[in-house]
């Protein structure tokens, strides 16, 4: 376990270095993608479609940035095991290190982008409340779950080579049925129960509740659902990994 954490840390550091080479342009690039997405959606939904949600920019940024982290990480990590075949076969290296380091790399980018975007928007409305400190709990659940999902999908990509296309398609569709730019209240009560089974949204809901109109009961309920989802995803990932670990080396 110690070796896994240590090598994941070293690889994440090296990946960040390789990608940005310690440049200012690299830093700008990290926030450019979420910033453009946020700008485009804020204009489209707030000003063109006139969606009526209180403190809309804050609502949007707290939902959109974790969503971008989740989707970008899944899309980047799905082919990682397949593309690293020669490396994995060359010497003893835990394949999970490659997955976890990619997740950690994107997570740091997400934290940076979110911090830079959140603070000015929050200050437009009011000073931040103490509840933002609680965000660390849903963030831990989010990173564990993303690691689990990425493990499942990158293994799947080794066996089914078009998994990444299916993932892109599914995430593209999911965006329009996830209350990121609209709220749950806008959906008919008959269909709201479906959001309890919308796994990515469970984490976004728990995370957003720390920043947007905090209510302790609502937060605890969202957190318990996200925790159950995490247990479920980690169990599936662990079972899938144990079952397919040997075959992995044959297929890459």
């Amino acid at each position: 376990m110690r070796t896994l954490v240590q090598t994941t840390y070293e690889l994440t550091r090296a990946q960040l270095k390789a990608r940005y080479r310690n440049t200012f342009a690299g830093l700008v690039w990290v926030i450019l993608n979420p910033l453009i997405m946020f700008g485009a959606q804020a204009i489209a939904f707030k000003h063109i479609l006139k969606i009526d949600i209180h403190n809309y920019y804050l609502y949007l940024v707290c939902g959109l940035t974790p969503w971008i982290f989740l989707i970008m990480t899944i899309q980047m990590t799905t082919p990682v095991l397949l593309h690293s075949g020669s490396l994995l076969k060359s010497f003893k290296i835990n394949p999970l290190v490659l997955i976890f380091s990619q997740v950690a790399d994107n997570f740091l980018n997400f934290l940076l982008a979110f911090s830079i975007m959140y603070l000015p928007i929050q200050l437009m409305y009011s000073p931040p409340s103490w509840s933002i400190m609680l965000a660390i709990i849903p963030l831990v659940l989010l990173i564990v779950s993303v690691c689990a999902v990425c493990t499942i999908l990158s293994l799947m990509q080794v066996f089914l080579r078009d998994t990444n296309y299916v993932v892109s398609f599914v995430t593209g569709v999911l965006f329009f049925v996830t209350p990121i730019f609209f709220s749950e209240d806008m959906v008919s009560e008959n269909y709201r129960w479906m959001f309890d089974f919308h796994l990515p949204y469970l984490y976004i809901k728990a995370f957003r509740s720390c920043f947007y109109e905090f209510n302790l009961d609502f937060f605890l309920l969202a957190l318990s659902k996200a925790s159950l989802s995490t247990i479920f995803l980690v169990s599936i990932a662990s079972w899938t990994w144990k079952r397919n670990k040997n075959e992995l080396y044959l297929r890459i």
Partner: protein
Amino acid sequence: MNSTSESKSVLEVNDLNIHFDLDYHFIASVREKFIQAIKDPIDFFSPSKDKLHVLKGIQLSLNHGDRLGIIGVNGSGKTTLCRCIAGMYSPSKGSVNINGEVRAIFDTSVGILPELTGRENAQLLSQFLFPSISKDERKAIIDDALEFSELGHFLDTPYRTYSKGMQTRLSLSLISSKATDLLILDEVFDGADEFFQEKISKRVLKMIHQSGAVIFVSHSPDQVLQACNRAIFLNNGHIEIDGSPEEVIAHYRKANIGGSVK
């Protein structure tokens, strides 16, 4: 013959079996799986029960000082056995017990992040190969390996621009810089240019002699004779003979000529 030495046990392999599901009609896409599930659901939900047995009942022990050569034709299970001992495969049946640290190398021309320089890749590779050493020891190992590689100013150019020979020089220099309890080398000399080959061979042989026990896979009987004091001949997933390198190589040659190798 189980071991040439009476000293401390380094490796115990008991009744090791490795098998994989044999999929005759392997489908590698979600789209095709979907079509098959619709077209022939019975066949889709009743997968083949056949197994591909790569290793069968392997019984092996290594003591401190053993330098074991593994000989066999392609597909005989040499690399699978090494990977299983290294902990990359889980046994389907049986057990592998190692007393100490194991380091296994199967290819020497691989960089971890090709966008980084050779020096940075060496630093990263050392983290994977020697995760538990101190910072000072790591620095000493890397400095020594970089100097030995004779790559000069190329060390600060991106690894992706290296030729296969340069990649092998860098990796082999680093790999051969520290001995370990159990060292597994699978055809590691392939890829180095002929001028570097002699220099690195001496260094690798020195490390082999310093390590607790060594498993050495090579297609070259001369290299096995030079590096090993014991050998096994692996044929069709099981050990056919375990003995001195001279004896095993003679048997291997005879079996190949006689056509008993499967």
